[in-house]
């Protein structure tokens, strides 16, 4: 729209300047024509006046007034002579003398109309007459104040150095009028063209404004009066990724508002929240209602303050939390969750950036809502990892599968159970490891689908092979309402074989909500599922974990086992973990057993289970006991 307005302005100015230029050119042509014609007529008048002067000299020798007064016949003859030069252009030709009082009076008048009599007083109305009388030089008077005359040419009649009279020739106004009349239509045409163009431009402008208004209305969400998805599509086509940062807001537990207070209350809340967000952003920022209770805000980047988007998001979250919404005498308190994409330019498309903000929003929801979540690096586009759609496609086309690594009983050297390790098969048949795709799908619906598929696959294997299988999950999965619900659903569906399952929890995430974790794990354990702590002894290793996790098994961190035959410290740590486990009546598994030396030490420390490449590599098929070490 701004571009169209600029084009209109440029067009209008160009046309205006062209018209002004044409008008000025026409005026200059007219003036030049007038001047040239005036010079021509004046030159002719000068010749005529000179002839008249010569003619007067041939009859008048001393005193023009006295001699002409005395000779009426001579006056008559001379006036006849003057009459011969009267034309349409030279309207009046006459000779005046100045009396002693300084008044001008007729000596001769060759005019065909309005003829002055000898001695009749004549108002000359210009000091130039006196100047000519005095200077004895010819002069031109422009008769701007007279309607019928254009110019008067004055020529002094001199006898013996005295100015006896002035020969005057009045030019009719007809000629300049004719010139003006000839150019007037052209001037009028220019004005008409200008007016027509002006009208056309006005009509076009009116149409454009109408179009703009119609388009704008189609871009506005009727409920909240902020932009809708139609606008977002247009906006995304024109957006420069470098110029904006992105926030995705979602009203927490909005469904409850609709359920408890009714849809009118829900609509009211949406309007109020939209207004609140609108009031907290700037004119350059763009607010879009993205979905039911989701809002997208494109925040114009500030060069000096890269974190402006975070401040704005936090301010909106804080203000909304403090706001008390009143609807039909009901007080409603709400919170917002927000996900931010800080660097849109890091994404291959703006849609990817929106997905990222959505993922951050998901994390905010999962971490308890009423918070703003962002990733400083907007990481996952920088890592050489799989596209989320590829992973989704792999799951949908059964290219998600498990490899099973046996876990041996160290004493009996028999397979006690298996660890299921998730894998993807890519289009080329290659195996893709979790490191390459888990981060991409974390906190997305794809992750949930994958978890469900893996649980199904594991239970299918248990059913077919009657073997114990352990499966890796994160503590965050237990805290995630959706994933936990899914686990419980799967356990319920496979309750008869659930006791064959062990869930290995990776402990690298800090745990702030221990009570919930404990409660949920106890619920899982009610199905007979065993709980193992993976990578124990690394990272956030904390003996406090036994207070809130109902642990059945601990798997000692691979790094400790790897160095157990060379590092006394690793040996001591593993030994102490084994002792502790015995005290707590918890089973211990040593991972990463890569050699006979390590296995011997594990056996010496009385660790029950071991797994590692020395014992058996992970493989798609279940390895049975005939392949014992």
């Amino acid at each position, binding site marked *: 729209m701004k571009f169209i307005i600029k084009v209109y302005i440029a067009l209008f100015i160009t046309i205006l300047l062209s018209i002004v230029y044409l008008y000025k050119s026409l005026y200059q042509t007219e003036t030049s024509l007038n001047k040239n014609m005036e010079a021509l007529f004046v030159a002719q008048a000068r010749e005529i006046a000179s002839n008249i002067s010569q003619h007067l000299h041939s009859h008048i020798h001393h005193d023009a007034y006295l001699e002409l007064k005395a000779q009426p016949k001579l006056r008559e003859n001379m006036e006849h002579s003057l009459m011969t030069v009267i034309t349409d252009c030279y*309207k*009046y030709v*006459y000779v005046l003398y100045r009396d002693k009082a300084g008044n001008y009076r007729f000596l001769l008048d060759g*005019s065909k109309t*309005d003829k*002055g*009599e000898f001695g*009749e*007083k*004549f*108002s*000359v*109305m210009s000091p130039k007459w006196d100047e000519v009388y005095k200077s004895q030089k010819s002069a031109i008077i422009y*008769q701007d104040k*007279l*309607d*019928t*005359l254009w110019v008067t040419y004055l020529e002094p009649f001199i006898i013996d150095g005295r100015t006896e009279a002035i020969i005057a020739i*009045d030019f009719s106004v007809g000629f300049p009028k004719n010139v003006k009349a000839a150019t007037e239509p052209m001037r009028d045409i220019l004005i008409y063209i200008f007016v027509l163009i002006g009208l056309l431009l006005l009509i076009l402008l009116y149409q454009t404004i109408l179009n703009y208004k119609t388009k704008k209305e189609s871009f506005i969400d009727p409920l909240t009066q902020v932009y809708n998805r139609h606008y977002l599509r247009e906006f995304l086509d024109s957006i420069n990724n470098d110029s904006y940062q992105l926030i995705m807001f979602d009203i927490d537990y909005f469904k409850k508002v609709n359920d408890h207070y009714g849809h009118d209350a829900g609509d009211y809340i949406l309007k109020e929240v939209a207004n609140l967000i609108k009031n907290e952003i700037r004119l350059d920022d763009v607010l879009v209602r993205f979905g039911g209770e989701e809002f997208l805000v494109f925040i114009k980047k500030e060069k000096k303050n890269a974190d402006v988007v975070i401040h704005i998001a936090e301010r909106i979250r804080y203000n909304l939390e403090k706001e008390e919404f009143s609807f039909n005498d009901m007080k409603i308190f709400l919170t917002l969750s927000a996900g931010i994409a800080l660097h849109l330019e890091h994404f291959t498309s703006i849609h990817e950036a929106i997905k990222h903000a959505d993922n951050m929003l998901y994390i905010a929801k999962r971490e308890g809502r009423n918070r703003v979540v962002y990733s400083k690096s907007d990481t996952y586009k920088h890592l050489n990892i799989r596209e989320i759609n590829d992973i989704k496609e792999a799951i949908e086309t059964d290219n998600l599968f498990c490899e099973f690594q046996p876990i041996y009983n160290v004493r009996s050297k028999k397979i006690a159970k298996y660890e299921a390790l998730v894998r993807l098969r890519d289009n080329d048949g290659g195996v893709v490891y979790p490191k390459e795709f888990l981060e991409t799908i974390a906190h997305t619906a794809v992750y949930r689908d994958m978890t469900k598929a893996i649980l199904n696959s594991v239970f299918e294997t248990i059913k077919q092979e009657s073997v114990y299988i352990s499966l890796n999950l994160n503590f965050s999965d237990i805290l995630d309402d959706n994933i936990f619900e899914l686990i419980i659903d799967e356990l319920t569906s496979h309750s008869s074989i659930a006791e064959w399952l062990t869930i290995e929890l990776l402990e690298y995430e800090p745990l702030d909500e221990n009570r919930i974790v404990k409660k949920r794990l106890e619920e899982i354990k009610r199905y007979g599922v065993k709980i193992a702590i993976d990578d124990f002894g690394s990272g956030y290793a904390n003996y406090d974990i036994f207070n809130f996790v109902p642990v059945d098994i601990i798997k000692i961190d691979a790094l400790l086992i790897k160095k157990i035959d060379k590092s006394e410290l690793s040996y001591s740590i593993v030994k102490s973990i084994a002792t502790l486990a015995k005290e707590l009546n918890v089973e211990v598994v040593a991972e990463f057993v890569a050699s006979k030396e390590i296995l011997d030490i594990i056996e010496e420390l009385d660790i029950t289970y071991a797994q590692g490449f020395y014992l058996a590599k992970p493989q798609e098929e279940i390895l049975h006991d005939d392949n014992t070490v």
Partner: protein
Amino acid sequence: MKKLLLILLLLLNVTVMASAKGLSAEQKIYASVLGALYGESRVKLWCDDEKKAEMLSLLNNIALTKDKSDADILFVFHSLDLESDKPKFVGSYALLKHYKNDVIGGFYWQKGRPNLLFLRSNLKKQHLEVGAALEKFVEDSF
């Protein structure tokens, strides 16, 4: 658009009214002449030309009369056989010459230029003066 048209019409109307109220150059001269001769007092004026009479009636302190004997001044544009001792002011050089013995002055256009003239002797006969402003138009003899 309608508003614009109304404004244009109003402007046009005001312009027409203003020009109607404004005096022409000729009216201004007559006003100066009558002001110089009679001051601020109301003047009863007789005129033998309908259009000129209409024009003169627009001047301040002028009352037209059809009765010459009731008039303070006679404005003569055509009549050549006017017999009255009232001051005469004429509209052409020919009439000025015709009534040269009792006309107080005249105003007429010659060669597109306005010509104003008073005759001192006749002004005296009527006990009239034109004042300093118009003194330069007073002729001692004709």
